[in-house]
């Protein structure tokens, strides 16, 4: 699979400087984390690894991720003052720096909290503002923000993958990439379907009714 597909990944994004990987890419990681969480969080813990850990402050990587969590675009002029915006919106922020070694230099973990829900999203910024999500709630994965992805949390029992893919097939949606991971046999597993087109709400609703499916989220492209 090619790293870059659209010309607008090369001529773009239009963004607040100074770094496409450390600023614009960071906005996107924040946006995807917010999408996975599905609502406004009350608290965010952002952990930086690798090159991000060394240089996040000078590149505004922290404000960029906060801006993304607050659904701002890469070219939103409020990015430099995102701490202030977060305070106004009642979003508590904690920044952590980790010296843990990582496979890709620009890695960040975003943890979002609310009343009871929690998600953790690990993203890498691969250059030119393009990002990949490599872990969600402890499950390894491989999603880019470019294609729509449906995350299905389900109990690791026989036939669940078939039930979901049959439903998708029934609605004539093409799956471009499918991955499944689990922590332990029989426990909660995560299935990620990347699709060529958006999956309509009623299909997601139908999916939620399948036995042993605990949560369905569509991450928008």
């Amino acid at each position, binding site marked *: 699979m*090619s*790293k*870059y*597909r*659209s*010309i*607008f*990944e*090369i*001529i*773009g*994004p*239009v*963004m*607040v*400087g*100074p*770094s*496409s*990987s450390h*600023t*614009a890419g960071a906005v996107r990681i924040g946006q995807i984390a917010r999408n996975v969480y599905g609502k406004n969080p009350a608290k965010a813990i952002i952990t930086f690894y690798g*090159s991000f850990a*060394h*240089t996040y402050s*000078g*590149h*505004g990587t922290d404000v960029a991720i906060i801006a993304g969590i607050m659904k701002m675009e890469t*070219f939103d*002029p409020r*990015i*430099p003052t995102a701490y202030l915006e977060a305070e106004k919106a009642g979003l508590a922020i904690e920044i952590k720096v980790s010296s843990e070694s990582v496979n890709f*230099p*620009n890695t960040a973990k975003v943890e979002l909290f609310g009343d009871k829900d929690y998600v953790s999203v690990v993203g890498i910024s*691969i*250059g*030119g*503002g393009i990002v990949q999500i490599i872990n969600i709630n402890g499950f390894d994965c491989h999603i880019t923000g470019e294609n729509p992805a449906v995350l299905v949390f389900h109990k690791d029992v026989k036939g669940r993958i078939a039930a979901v893919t049959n439903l998708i097939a029934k609605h004539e949606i093409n799956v471009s990439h499918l991955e499944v991971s689990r922590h332990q046999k029989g426990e909660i597993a995560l299935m990620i379907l990347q699709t060529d087109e958006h999956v309509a709400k009623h299909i997601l609703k139908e999916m939620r009714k399948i036995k042993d499916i605990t949560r369905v989220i569509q991450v928008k492209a």
Partner: protein
Amino acid sequence: MIKNFTELIEICRIEKLSIYQVALNQELRLFESSEQAIYEKMEFQLKAMENSVARGLEGVQSHSGLTGGDAKRMAVYLQKEKSLMGKMLAEAVNNAIAVNEVNAAMGIICATPTAGSAGVLPGVLTAIRQEFNLDRKAQLNFMLTAGICGLIIGNNASISGAEGACQAEIGSASAMTAAALVEAASGSPEMSVEAVAIALKNLLGLSCDPVAGLVEIPCIKRNAIGVSNCFTAAEMALAGIKSRIPCDEVVHAMCRIGEMMPEALKETALGGLADTPTARNMRRKIQNK
């Protein structure tokens, strides 16, 4: 998707198309959007580029205080003095500096292909469009041509400083813009690809060693050299000069060099210019700010 430059030239030759047409067709095929939608989106990117040039020429200052004001300085100089390198090239250099000073000041730019190298294409395009009588559509086509060349480089090597050092950022920006410049000057697709090879070769091995880890020193001036190198490569290619090493092999060499380069020279701000006594002092001052 076009995999490499050999394939790009082949398609241009067989289907008798310019590079921008191949780029447009690919974008249409992959994303099923309309031609109008693509041009509208490109227009949005071009406007952002123009605004960043204008803002930079007025004079901006970065948050660290390390950079700013040089684009304005050069514009004032060019109005008074006779330029050494000629008006068009000098203006392109000037505009590239402007964009990257705005970038360092957390202003709005269009990453092309990255933010650190965002000045090269807008610098060249805004300086040549009048002289070459490029109407709005032709300017957007210029960006399409550069875009597909950047895609090929990015997919076969890298456009990331952390991965491939500055050769992957300024090198790629300079090479893809050189291809578009050749096309704007009515050169053939083959000449465009030669320009990519020449421009890329000339910046191979360029380290990414930003002072204090910021996209300021030497990034802003590297955009200026990316512009000069772009003109040099395009001019040679238009004269019929060929790269003795084929373009795809140059791209591969760039990729390998990036892999071989030590981490200290790939955006970590641990080596090179970032590790000079003056740079270390600057870093300390910023940290104590």
